[in-house]
């Protein structure tokens, strides 16, 4: 058996899953399963939200150790699902290590949804979340307009390569400012709670929150803590953005009643 290739395969699978937003314990579990197909005595994996370590050792071979620094995470749940399937097939003996490696390489090049679908979904998301929170049709349309601001902020920060914190902040400022504008001119019809609360929903770090909880339950406190901080910071950036937007509008409009 080609142990080097096996280690590479495990590392690749782990990297894909970690980048795509899998829970840390799931990444470790999948990598360990792949490594254990070698039947070697020592198979260790250690995964943090920012890096992967793996070790494959036995008296019969020279030990293999790989380290991979992971930055630039892009959530893509489909990749987790596909990498999971490949590892399942590999462990069940349906495909060989070589096939698994090539299949994993192929996952990375595949694109699930184009941006022309993701952007409208952001707008629809803002609208629908406003309805979910009890907003009426008018408010959900305005929330859709707010969704456009999220899309604009996303495109802009992607072009300039700025981090998510600034993206959330700027989008929230625009959302709050726009909502206040509508509140000023159409006061009675606006449900500010549902409007702003719904509009910022697509910005909330759903992946980080869920993973923070599930990693902590697994006893993976380092990853759990890191994810908890991540979700708190991202949520706070939206909150601060809303504050700035509302304050800005009330100053510009000469101190209207919020």
């Amino acid at each position, binding site marked *: 058996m080609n142990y080097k290739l096996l280690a590479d395969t495990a590392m690749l699978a782990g990297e894909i899953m970690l980048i795509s937003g899998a829970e840390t314990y799931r990444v470790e579990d999948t990598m360990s399963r792949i490594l254990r197909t070698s039947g070697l005595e020592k198979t260790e994996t250690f995964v943090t939200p920012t890096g992967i370590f793996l070790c494959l050792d036995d008296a019969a071979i020279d030990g293999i150790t790989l380290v991979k620094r992971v930055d630039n995470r892009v959530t*893509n*749940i489909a990749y*987790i699902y596909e990498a999971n399937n490949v590892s399942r097939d590999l462990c069940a003996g349906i495909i060989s290590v070589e096939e698994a490696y090539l299949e994993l390489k192929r996952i990375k090049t595949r694109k699930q*949804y184009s941006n022309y679908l993701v952007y409208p*979904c952001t707008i629809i*998301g803002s609208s629908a979340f406003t309805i*979910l929170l009890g907003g009426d049709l008018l408010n959900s349309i305005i929330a859709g307009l707010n969704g456009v601001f999220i899309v604009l902020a996303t495109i802009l920060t992607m072009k300039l390569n700025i981090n998510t914190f600034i993206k959330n902040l700027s989008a929230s400022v625009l959302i709050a400012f726009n909502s206040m504008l509508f509140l000023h001119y159409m006061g009675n019809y606006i449900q500010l*709670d549902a409007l702003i609360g719904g509009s910022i929903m697509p910005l909330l770090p759903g992946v980080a929150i869920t993973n923070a*909880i599930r990693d902590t339950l697994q006893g993976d406190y380092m990853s759990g803590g890191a994810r908890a901080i991540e979700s708190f910071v991202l949520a706070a950036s939206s909150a601060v953005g809303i504050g700035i937007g509302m304050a800005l509008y009330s100053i510009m409009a000469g101190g209207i009643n*919020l």
Partner: protein
Amino acid sequence: MMLIQVVGAFIAVVAFAVIIGVPKKFLVHAGLVGAVGWFVYLLLAPVGLSIVGRMFFAALMVALISHSFARLLKAPVTLFLIAGILPLVPGVGMYRIVYNLITNNNALAGHYMNETLQIAGMIALAIFIMDTIFRIFQKKM
């Protein structure tokens, strides 16, 4: 009115599922998880539970259905859980905290801060419980 909100939840969760890249064949399932979770939350409104309590049962339902789908469809739980739990995440609570802070209403801001933290804790607790139950169940099989 309740039905409209549940439909809104379905559409919202499907849209969010597309954003985070859930595979096409699981989009409807993810939407269902979110819609049922929000339905439970609305359904419990007349019972007299606090918002925090209602959130707990809604999150419990979301986690239950997510785990069931994961077992039935042989897919990771996160596929359904991440998108499905999102409607319960207290976005409005966050807005209310900020709103009351900048209007110098510190008492109310503190109240909502408290409530938002409690809701977050309840969601975590619900996911904890369901994860544990399904792990026991899995070992026995």
